[in-house]
């Protein structure tokens, strides 16, 4: 998947999340009287918002590396994690409203309008932040966590503000909710990818075979390559690739590669890699698969 296509996909995932959430939240709003309190009602909204966006974004990595098992697993992990994030976000927003709300917005009208909008904006920001952290937690990668932290913070803040502001200014307008959700999803996707590119230690571009053209961003300390679905780069359908074939390591900004097995074919510019760090335009052979390493915009 080329970088452009990856960006388009991520944006589409954000929009799909918004599309799925819109009717869900509209239905929830209709059944508002069934909730015993505002707290539970907003908790339900947060959990649903987090779960749906978490599921869609959680499956993204699986789609990028063309691994269906990874995509489905990421979907479930993202949904569960996002639901938790939604609860935490809403509770934090409420806590903020209780702690600072009466000091910041002293009159009832301000508390019930601007105060509430800011508190829910804060909740959406936190949900965005946690959803963006999903991939970093899944991959146990500090760089991915940093990408998620910054991408989620920026995307969540922009998207959360838009979502909250739109529902504040057009409360009875279902279209404004859809627009707010779409902006939220898009902001999250775009901000994540911007920071992913910014913090990557280069990219491996796959040159041949069925998955040719895919960009694999080096962001984690260890990137496992092999034919097994649990690898980070899944080379299904490539001859001569072991289930776990090689590991690309990132250490102090230096990228190196090592074979996972003695007889696994790993070549760097047609030679044994022998622990040297990768430089731009190096050609890496993993079995019959070939990558070129570099920074691609």
């Amino acid at each position, binding site marked *: 998947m080329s970088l452009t296509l990856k960006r388009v*996909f991520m944006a589409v*995932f954000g929009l*799909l*999340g918004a*599309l*799925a959430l819109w*009717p*869900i939240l*509209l*239905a929830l*709003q209709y059944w508002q*009287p*069934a909730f015993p*309190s*505002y*707290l539970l*009602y907003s908790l339900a*909204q947060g959990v649903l918002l987090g779960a749906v966006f978490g599921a*869609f974004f959680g499956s993204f990595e*699986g*789609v990028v590396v*063309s691994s*269906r098992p990874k995509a*489905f697993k990421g979907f479930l992990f993202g949904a569960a994690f996002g639901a938790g994030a939604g609860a935490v976000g809403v509770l934090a927003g*409420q806590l903020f*409203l*209780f702690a600072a709300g*009466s000091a910041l917005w*002293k*009159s*009832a*009208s301000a*508390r*019930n*309008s601007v105060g509430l909008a800011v508190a*829910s904006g804060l909740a959406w920001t936190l949900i965005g932040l946690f959803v963006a952290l999903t991939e970093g937690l899944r991959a146990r990668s500090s760089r991915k966590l940093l990408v998620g932290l910054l991408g989620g913070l920026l995307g969540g803040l922009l998207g959360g503000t838009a979502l909250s502001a739109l*529902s504040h200014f*057009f*409360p009875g*307008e*279902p279209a*404004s*909710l859809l627009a707010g959700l779409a902006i939220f999803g898009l902001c999250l996707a775009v901000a994540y990818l911007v920071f992913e590119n910014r913090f990557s230690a280069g990219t491996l571009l796959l*040159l041949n*075979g069925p998955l*040719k*053209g*895919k960009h694999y961003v080096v962001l984690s300390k260890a990137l496992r390559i092999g034919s097994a679905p649990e690898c980070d780069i899944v080379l299904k*359908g*490539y*001859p001569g690739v072991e289930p776990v074939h090689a590991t690309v390591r990132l250490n102090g900004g230096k990228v190196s590669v090592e074979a996972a097995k003695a007889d696994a074919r790993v070549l760097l*510019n*047609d030679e044994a890699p022998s622990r040297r760090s990768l430089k731009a*335009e190096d*050609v890496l*052979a993993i079995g*019959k*698969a*070939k990558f*070129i390493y570099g920074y691609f915009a």
Partner: protein
Amino acid sequence: MRAIKYTLAMLLALAAAGFAGAQGLSITQIGTERLLSSQETRLYLATPPLATDPATGAPSLEVWESGDGVDYDPRPITGLSSTENADEGIRFFLLVDNSGSMWTDMAGADTDDLAALRVERAKTAARAFLAELSAKDTVGMAVFNTRYWSAVPPGGQANEAARALDELSKPAPADAYTELYLSMERALESFALEPGRRVLIVLSDGENFPYAQMSGKPNPETGTRQTTPEAVIERAVRDGVTIYAVRFGAQKDPRLGDTAEGSGGRAFDAMNENELTSIYRTIRADVLSELALDYKAGMERGEKRWVKVEALSADGRRLTAVRHYYAGTILGQNTVRPELWYLFLIAAAFLLWLALVLLRLERETDKAGVRLLFGTHGQQTRFFEIAGPQTVIGAAPDADVSIAGNPSLKSSHATILFDEAKDAYTVVSDTPITVNNKEVTRRRLESGDVLNLAGTVVVFDDSLLKKAKAMRARIKTRKYSSRPDRR
């Protein structure tokens, strides 16, 4: 314990109500301070003595809530106190008219008798009122005519207000207008920030006479800003402030009474300082005698809620009071019953997602060829198929793979040879080129090899699966052919 609490509350309520001589039942203020945290709404009720349940001693009170003002649901009462306003103190705000007419006598004539001036009579009554406030009460004060002077900010002390009264001076003619409703709105803006029971007492001796509309020039403080009695009521209801209006003198603003009642308060008329003093005393006694009732609020859709209180008075009358308040909304509101297309939309989003997951955008090539890796824009994806035993790559327009744009590229730079018997591709070149960053002049190629021809980088591509199949097939053939030999 509960019964004792109720009984005590009621005894006090009865005593206070009796003292104040309240007639009907009214909801004077609705507080939403704890709505979002503990789902509680507070009502301040002015009631006559109420009948009590003989068993529990609880007063006969019921609270109902509605999202549309039509269908009401009963709500549980969580707390009731008749001493709340005495315990917590009352937040007063005095809004005093200081227009030109206040500096005349009650008949509207100029006079040298200082004590006969309306403003002096108002000051006397106000001083008496301030002297009676409890230490827990707070008071703010503003004076208005064309301009608005915030004399004592809300939450101030009685002695500060008394001092401010001494500073009132006769306005210049241009400042002598009665900017009544705009001043009430400005008072509400600052007063709404006070916590607790908020009582705004406005004293005016005339009709609203706004500067901008009457003089045709913008108001020196508010420009062309205007407001209406309706907007003032709306503001007071949203922020839970009760307005008490005192019409001083014969000339009365026609809408001031409605405005006070719309906010949950009352309007009074006074002709001299004694009546004025007694009105102030009544207002405070009324507020002190109010019941503070907390109830568990419902979750009706939308931000506007109606609340209805029903009570039975001690003398057997059925009393009802209805008012509305505003709650917040999160993520908007929806009153449309969910429809089938909601499900379709959700399903569509998930199906589209599934399609993207299952979609294989990449396809294995079944042809051998070369692809430009870092070509000029637009040429990046171009794939040159390799056909026949010899394929020439170069800058010449008639080369098999003709690449333009690189002056260092020779017209015939390298040739890829195809050996059909071995199914092998080999690149040959007179001048050294690099394959996978290794300098060569001849090299057998495999799928994915990166060729650098004087700066033009191409990738050699060939089907991996076809090769793998062919290899398996050759191994099989060899096995078969070896069998007869063994025999």
